[in-house]
């Protein structure tokens, strides 16, 4: 089974700073890590490899420094790593990113399963995974918290919902996004760390992909962030004191005024 895991390099901080001019993330001086949700995707891929055999390829789109997160994935069991990097990809929104990654995965060929984290911790859109599936015309299962079985070209899995979970059977190849309940990621191994040091990172540029240039980067991005702001803290609620009958009458009066207002 050939598994591809899409990962993203994100800033390692809870206090993400936004550039007020461009409304994009300030990345300078902030250490980068593997998007926390993607760590579960890598772990699940490695577990599937251990259960059913096969290979795990990690892929990321980003600047050359994103190589570090690919190497980190190798320390915990990924076999190959692909860096999709080109100036032409700069400024991609989720549509252009999904398109570019989909074309890169297509280039890898014969992929049985694509695994993504449910969303990235910086953008929080949860759109790129489903976007890749759409571009490749693959079935997609989002918010997976358990993979029950894979056989005869089908996979059975549990998909988390707000009320409980759904058991979904899908044909393969397919794309899934996973939630953190799916597993407990392992620590790196020594052999993995040594392999990560020497592993050859495969590089893909725009010219290596069968892409339409106008669908890449800023040109290929119909959405842009017009403003990012921190919402003001919620004002304190009004507290009515006194007897129950008294406060109830007061409350109903205030609510009525609000409705009129």
């Amino acid at each position, binding site marked *: 089974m050939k598994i591809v895991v899409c990962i993203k390099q994100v800033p390692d901080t809870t206090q993400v700073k936004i550039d007020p001019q461009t409304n994009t993330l300030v990345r300078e001086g902030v250490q980068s890590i593997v998007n926390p949700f993607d760590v579960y995707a890598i772990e699940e891929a490695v577990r599937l490899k251990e259960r059913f055999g096969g290979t795990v390829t990690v892929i990321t789109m980003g600047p050359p420094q994103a190589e570090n997160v690919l190497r980190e994935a190798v320390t915990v069991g990924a076999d190959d790593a692909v860096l999709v990097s080109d100036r032409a990809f700069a400024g991609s929104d989720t549509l252009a990113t999904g398109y570019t990654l989909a074309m890169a995965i297509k280039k890898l060929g014969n992929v049985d399963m694509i695994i993504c984290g449910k969303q990235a911790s910086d953008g929080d859109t949860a759109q790129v995974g489903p976007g890749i599936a759409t571009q490749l015309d693959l079935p997609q299962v989002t918010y997976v918290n358990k993979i029950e079985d894979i056989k005869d070209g089908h996979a059975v899995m549990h998909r988390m919902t707000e009320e409980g979970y759904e058991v979904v059977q899908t044909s393969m190849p397919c794309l899934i996004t996973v939630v953190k309940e799916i597993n407990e990621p*392992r*620590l*790196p*191994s*020594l*052999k993995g*760390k*040594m392999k990560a*040091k020497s592993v050859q990172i495969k590089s893909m540029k725009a010219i290596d992909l069968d892409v339409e240039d106008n669908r890449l980067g800023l040109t290929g991005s119909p959405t842009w962030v017009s403003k990012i702001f921190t919402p003001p803290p919620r004002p304190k609620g009004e507290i009515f004191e006194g007897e129950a009958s008294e406060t109830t009458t007061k409350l109903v009066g205030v609510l009525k005024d609000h409705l009129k207002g």
Partner: protein
Amino acid sequence: MLDYLLTDEQKMIRDLCRQITDEKIRPVAAKYDESQEFPWDVVKVMADADIGGLYIEQKYGGMGGGIMELVIAAEEFSKGCGGIALCFAATALGTLPIILFGNEDQKQKYLPDIASGKKIAAFGITEPAAGSDASAMQTTADLKGDHYVLNGMQHFITNGGDAETYVVIAMTDKSKGARGASAFILEKGMKGFTFGKKEDKMGIRASSTRELIFTDCKVPKENLLGKEGMGFVITMKTFDKSRPGIGAQAVGIAQGALDEAVKYARQRHQFGRSISSFQGIQFMLADMATEVEAARALVYSCARMIDSGAKDYSQYSAMCKLFASEMAMKVTTDAVQIFGGYGYIKEYPVEKYMRDAKITQIYEGTSQIQKNVIGLSLIKEALKK
């Protein structure tokens, strides 16, 4: 810590072992100290991280390192818990005789499972009446056809009952005294090989210590390690290589206690200021840190000498174990002193370091036995001149 010019690979080992210690050992150290259960979950983490094979040749599935790599790992784990670290270090003690004296068949059969971490190992020589004087041992092994029959009892065996692979010393010819001992590889589950009581210890409580009982235990002839009569030579050569591991355990325990003491001294306020501002405390911390570093330097130097292929290193191996274990006892006692009353209660971590440190002065040869080894070496060298 001084820069010991570790190789990139050694730094990688240190960082990984540190990560295991911080994420998987420290959070459970107090729990296992209290319950005395065997820390299988942590042993599994070590196995998955390829730590089991650090000092085993690559052709048997190991990482191809030596004593230096073993020492780095033992020290890092011991910073978190000397008992859990011992599950790893005692496996090394049970494995070294096979690495040093095993034939190809024995190595092929036993080393890969230890390297992968699937099995842990143990070494057995101590008996109730034979501690420092190992030649007083009573366990016998009689050759009967194609197997030896072992009878007797050993005690205080680290990893006893939990290990799968054992190297056990027994007398094949009592009339020859020390030259009549031989070494055997035993497997858990062999008929007539059972385990007695588990000891309730002062420290290193996460590590198991049990009796090994041999009742007409049939051991195949091919499980003899080396030749008949080599039992004590094998033991001495094994200890010469394993003692830096105990030195490293002592350094790790002491470093762990020192780190806690520095942290506490900065937090604790008396007479209106942090106690770390008092020279009395600073001098104590300075002495502790200097001694820890000196012991580490001695342990690392000895480990590197062994790995360089040197022949005559038993006195240095004894020195590093002696110095580091005496240092650890002193430093951990001082750490408790800096904590004052809080140091004496189990809610704080330093009393455990002090209890764990004590054993390093006792096992794999007491401090006094180390001095015997060093003294004898000095006299032998003087005679050669």
